[in-house]
């Protein structure tokens, strides 16, 4: 798959000396949904702001659809739509006026039929003559999406698009994002809701303290880094794990009935058969068992925490 955004050796050091981004190299594929995850202050918004031209990079280069964002900024920016994290709207303007303004600003001739289509898709058509300050938070978020889409961008940046949005609207937005992807729009989203990335993204990048620590296909990431846990329920409670089972690093629940065994899905021999045999030898009778897979959230937390740990 060809890439639509190429980020090479991007650094950003603020005047205060704070190094927000450290040698970022990243390719975003054409037509994909890419989720950029990271804790607060990791550099997600700074990176997006540099790509969109709002913040100057200290070093490095970026191209969007083959155009350098500095030298060919007109072509590059005309391909990009941005929905920022903050609800920043022209409070005293109508929905229609502000969306028309956005289209013109991005160098496109007026096209009321297209704007009508967008507003209808976002359930904003009924509110087109309403002043933005009269709208709810969720509706304002939709207005910002409509503004970002008004010039038919090839690449859409969604910076925390569903922050503070109710569940129903969040689902609607996910639907809309998928529709846009179907239409060929490349979507880069940052989110605090790991569930959102898990639900929508094709690929996931994790950024922490200004460095990209991982970029991976979501499915591959889940299978590669995801662990499975087997919970074995015993017939009778035990006080301690028998020493003969130490090699399995089992965890015992506080009531002494459940034993947890974590195993790697990638390994051919996951050790379950041997564990069950050893349980039998240790005269522990199994009543029931079930397995569960770690979520993207668990993977993310593990990645960020291991990156935070000092090298030994």
């Amino acid at each position: 798959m060809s890439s639509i955004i190429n980020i090479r050796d991007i650094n950003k050091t603020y005047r205060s000396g704070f190094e927000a981004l450290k040698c970022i190299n990243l390719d975003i594929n054409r037509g994909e949904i890419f989720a950029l995850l990271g804790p607060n202050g990791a550099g997600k918004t700074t990176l997006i702001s540099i790509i969109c031209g709002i913040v100057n990079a200290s070093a490095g280069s970026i191209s969007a659809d083959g155009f350098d964002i500095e030298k060919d900024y007109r072509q590059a920016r005309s391909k990009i739509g941005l929905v920022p994290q903050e609800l920043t709207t022209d409070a005293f303007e109508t929905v229609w006026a502000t969306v028309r303004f956005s289209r013109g600003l991005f160098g496109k001739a007026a096209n009321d039929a297209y704007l009508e289509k967008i507003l209808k898709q976002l359930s904003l058509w009924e509110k087109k003559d309403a002043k933005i300050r009269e709208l709810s938070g969720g509706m304002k978020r939709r207005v910002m999406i409509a503004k970002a889409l008004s010039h038919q961008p090839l690449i859409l940046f969604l910076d925390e698009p569903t922050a503070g949005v109710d569940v129903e609207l969040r689902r609607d937005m996910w639907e809309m994002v998928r529709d846009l992807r179907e239409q060929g729009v490349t979507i880069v989203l940052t989110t605090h809701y790991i569930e959102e990335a898990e639900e929508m993204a094709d690929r996931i990048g994790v950024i922490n303290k200004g460095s990209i620590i991982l970029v991976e296909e979501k499915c591959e990431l889940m299978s590669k880094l995801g662990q499975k846990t087997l919970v074995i329920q015993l017939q009778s409670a035990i006080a301690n794990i028998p020493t003969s089972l130490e090699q399995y690093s089992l965890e015992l629940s506080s009531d002494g009935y459940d034993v947890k065994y974590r195993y790697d899905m990638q390994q051919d021999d996951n050790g379950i058969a041997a564990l069950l045999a050893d349980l039998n030898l240790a005269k522990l009778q199994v009543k029931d068992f079930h397995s569960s897979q770690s979520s993207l959230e668990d993977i993310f937390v593990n990645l960020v925490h291991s990156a935070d740990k000092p090298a030994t």
Partner: protein
Amino acid sequence: MNWYGVKAIYFFEMARAWHTLMQSIASPVLSTSLYFVVFGSAIGSRMGEIDNISYGAFIIPGLVMLSLLSQSISNASFGIFFPKFSGTIYEVLSAPVSPFEIALGYVGAAASKSIILGLITLLTARIFVDYSIAHPFWMLIFLILTSVTFSLFGFMIGIWADDFQKLQIIPLMIVTPLTFLGGAFYSITMLPEPWQSITLFNPVVYLISGFRWSFYDVADVNIVLCIAMTLTFLALCLGGIYWIFKTGYRLKS
């Protein structure tokens, strides 16, 4: 050139003036009219002529200039400050518009509003005082040059200001005193030395003097010098705007 972008900014700003008609047009016209009533009709009728011009007519160019300067600065500074304050500036900065086009849109709209306001003020003055315009072409040139120059100046103030107090401080503490002391209500030849020489360092003197010359063919300062000073100030403002966008001062981190 992204003409659609320039047009979008220009008409968006002009529409904002239309939404706030009372504040944008009615309020400055009313306050200038009060000057005409008080200084032109009431006090002016008891004052002698200056350069063979009735006092009421003499102060018209100065009052129009006073209104023009304050409105140009206020329109342009607020035009760019408000998106910064509300955060919507992100859209302008991320759009395929050059710094020149951004300035053209905002400054063009601010200058247009000031010119319209200046012309309305002139028409309103006619209700109270009889006056003539000796050089209509140059009157329009001064009107446009001053509006554009001070809109550029206001645009810079709007970018520099990071709170509402800073937005007001230069217009109120510097521009208004300079205008009042720049011969809006008197001829600078009426000042004793050394004030007459000191006042020549006030750039507004040249704007008012040149504008008054276009009305009555009399000026405190040589008209060529007036035009040269106006163009110099315009060039300085253009240079300032160029530097702001080149460095991203107070716009980009």
